[in-house]
């Protein structure tokens, strides 16, 4: 999808909220829902259409954990690090996946742009802890091994799709 198409869609989203300034968060949520992140151009357009400064839009976008200003992988993997998951050993799952994906430093997305690894403060599925989500689908009672297995399956599936195409 070209940049112009994206901006046209962004414009539609802002219009659907009647260009109301108080809808800023909802607007950015909708944009991110479609494109998985907020590009500089998109934020500038939103600011322009709402008649507020870009700095104001940027300040809100960076305040909330859920907004990302960077492009993300095809699969967004979130490991829950809430209390219940923590006491049932979720940290080794996160560490294991980081190592498996070869992520270093502040890097969150694998170099093949397939996976983005994040943590989430609590999914409220504590009865199934430790949990992780892949594109919002909840996977219960994970271990480092089963988590890596899941990612390998997805990778194999992608590889197969790729070969077919």
């Amino acid at each position: 999808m070209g940049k112009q198409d994206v901006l046209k869609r962004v414009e539609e989203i802002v219009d659907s909220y009647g260009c109301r300034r108080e809808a800023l968060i909802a607007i950015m949520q909708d944009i991110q829902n479609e494109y998985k992140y907020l590009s500089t151009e998109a934020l500038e357009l939103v600011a322009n259409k709402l008649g507020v400064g870009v700095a104001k839009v940027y300040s809100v976008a960076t305040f909330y954990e859920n907004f990302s200003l960077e492009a993300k992988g095809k699969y967004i993997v979130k490991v829950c690090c809430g209390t219940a998951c923590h006491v049932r050993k979720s940290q080794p799952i996160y560490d294991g996946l980081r190592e498996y994906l070869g992520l270093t430093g502040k890097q969150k997305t694998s170099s093949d742009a397939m996976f983005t690894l994040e943590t989430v403060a609590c999914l409220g599925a504590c009865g199934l802890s430790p949990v992780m989500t892949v594109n919002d689908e909840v996977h219960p009672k994970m271990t480092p091994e089963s988590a890596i297995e899941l990612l390998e399956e997805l990778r194999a599936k992608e590889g197969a799709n790729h070969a077919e195409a």
Partner: protein
Amino acid sequence: MPKRKLTRERLNAMRLEAKTLLAANTREVLVCAGTGCIAGGSLNIYDAVKKLCEDKGLKTRVSLKQEDNGGNALHFKKTGCHGFCEMGPLLQIEPDGILYTHVKVEDAEEIVERTIMKGEVIDRLLYTLDGKSYAKDSEIPFYKLQKRLVLENCGYTDAEDLTEYIARDGYVAFEKALFEMTDEGICKEILDSGLRGRGGAGFPMGRKWDSVRKQPKGKKYVVCNGDEGDPGAFMDRSIMEGNPHSIIEGMLIAALAAGSDEGYIYVRAEYPLAVDRLRTAIDKAEKLGLLGDNIMGTGFSFHLHINRGAGAFVCGEGSALTASIEGKRGMPRVKPPRTVEHGLWGQPTVLNNVETYANVPLIIRKGSEWFRSIGTEKSSGTKAFALTGNVVNTGLIEVPMGTTLREIIFDIGGGIKDGKKFKAVQIGGPAGGCLTEEHLDMPLDFDSLKSVGAIIGSGGLVVMDEDTCMVETARFFMSFTQNESCGKCVPCREGTKRMLEILTRIVNNEGTMDDLALLESLSATISEASLCGLGQAACNPVISTLKYFRDEYLAHVVDKHCPHCNGRKVQLVIDPSLCRGCGKCRKNCPMEAISGEIRQPHTIDTEKCIKCGACWSNCPFGAIREE
């Protein structure tokens, strides 16, 4: 077809019809469709069982409507959370009350053939405890000891079916408030009931509502805080998913009391299912005429919106939440003025959490007297708790206020996982404190918890067993709070950072005794000087672990070795080929753990040995080594 305007008579007629339909319901198949069971595949089970029934020619239906196959059909329901998440996915057959646990798609055939068609019970799917299997949910200790009022409908009703909510006396309270009570009367009834806010501080609801009512006439708002951010808490999520109309009804009553015509529900973004269910519920209530303009011809109007959070824990704080609804950074402001005077868009605002609103219809319908008869004198009613961590039955429970921790953890919760020993329970999330063995028999209510430095908070109970390091736990909570600090005020922004640094140092066995003193004085400053509740309560876990588990801090600081984090110290053994039997180690051992004849190789009794190393440093032959 033009929509008929809803009137009181029509609502009553509808209710009567719905009740008749419900009473005629001969059999129901309930599949739990809470977040937990869905993750376990419950929706596939629902589809499989329903399809099999249809294939076998059984009449089925999915809602309480006459045209839907009539009363003698099998009624399939996707219900809200049953609470027994550990045992999910759950499938229940009513009216027999048969509860199947850990159901798989492969079990569908057997369930249809044996249970649904022949009425037999499949033993292997029943819940078993200590060798006894339980056919009915009401007999299982986990449920038997609870008192489910707010959660009553969760697990039994279809959350998306407004007709069923109405059949179960839904909107009766709203109707009563709308036609028979004054705004002052509603506030008084709530005040008399003793209902206190279920979100944390436990402020009396009636007083809050009355303050908004007494504000000058004009625009007022009713806001529901569904930004349940405490890690380890999910009762509000379950209510939003399982009984969304109870929240709407509670908010309608609050709007009547306060004189408001517009409301917002602020839901955590991590709860997509709750957002969906609430949206459906609002749509249906609007279509029927329970929300909107001139409700039932009374002139009372109420419009309700949903706002999704965007992942900021601090938005659970009142002024931060309203800022976020306004589309701003969710940062708290200095108070006073309070939200009741200066809330959303600067207007007087009633702000309560989900569970609080869900209690309101019950109080109005059954009366304040009834509500007061439950719980303790100063904390009336029930409280929902999310029971998680190292406990056998994780899940969602509801008990009268004043129930003891022992009853919750051992009787309902089934004790500690893997037969380990209970160590502590963290109550109230990162803002709460820990309770230990000595508090097991203390009644849980607002005031007694406060007296020991903990809070009910939103109601998360995270159970920790003997293998948990409390210093590491305190560090975990501090890292959460530090990450969620909004950065507006210095004590919280800088203070939590320093606290986290010190705690990390201690966990890594690099701390000093001065660090402990520093933790204490910093805690006092941050609690005193922070702007909002997040900062003021940030140090509670540190203060309470320092108080009850100081020895664990000392293990990290003085011994530089924590048995929980660093594992047991290695065993000390005497190499018999090097030992000359001089006896020096035996004489130096403070535990009298070493025995042996003179000039014969000695041995160490590992049971008695404390690995102090006195033998090792005194052995002239280097015969003692670690293994």
